[in-house]
């Protein structure tokens, strides 16, 4: 199955893309996708303890199981205001 990945701020700079698509096995979680990305873009790995994650524009935990067509977002520490 296929998911869309959204990356923001510094994560986007590291990967060089704001949006990616990735094929993942059924039963994959947000964490599965993250580890795959971190191996592709080693600069991401340092963010593992600091990121927040979302699926389809709702916050979700790393162990959330994904469905086909989901949009997964990785969010570095925020700085709005």
């Amino acid at each position, binding site marked *: 199955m296929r998911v869309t990945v959204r990356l923001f*701020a510094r994560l986007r700079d590291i990967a060089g893309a704001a949006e990616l698509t990735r094929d993942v096995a059924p039963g994959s979680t947000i964490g599965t996708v993250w580890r795959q990305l971190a191996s592709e873009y080693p600069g991401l790995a340092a963010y593992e303890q600091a990121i927040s994650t979302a699926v389809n524009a709702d*916050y979700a935990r790393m162990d959330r199981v994904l469905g086909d067509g989901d949009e997964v*977002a990785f969010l570095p520490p*925020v700085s709005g205001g």
Partner: protein
Amino acid sequence: MSTPLLAIGPGPLELERIAASLASSAGQAAGVDGAVVTFLGLVRDHNLGRRVRYLEYEAYEPLALKAFERIASEIATRWPDTRLALHHRVGRLAIGDASVAIATRSPHRANAYAACRYAIERVKQIAPIWKREFFDGGDVWIEGATADPDAADARAEAERIACA
């Protein structure tokens, strides 16, 4: 055209209209509220000893709006008589520009002050918005809090700062 209570986008912030939208929003007849408190966050020209040239704000907009709705709901729970309007700007902002505008309205000033302060603290904790600082000699993404809207300790800290 009426101004929404919660919004995020590239347009300049119009505090007067945002506050007015609260006055006309459902649920409170004229004369019930005794206090309106507003907050404007402005772009400063210095940060951590760097001379700032301008900022760029980026957001995950649909989730940011949901975060604002969550903040409004938290306020409705904690201060049931108090209502919130909250707008955040994105894109390139010049020194002195307003990046965030908040208005609260309540029968009682204590609640209006507390909710307004609470709102900005929660925006900084949980809204998926990022600020890139362009300073003399370079640029840097500012990274603050790891957003976790369910974290009870962060929420308690925002209430503490709001003096609630």
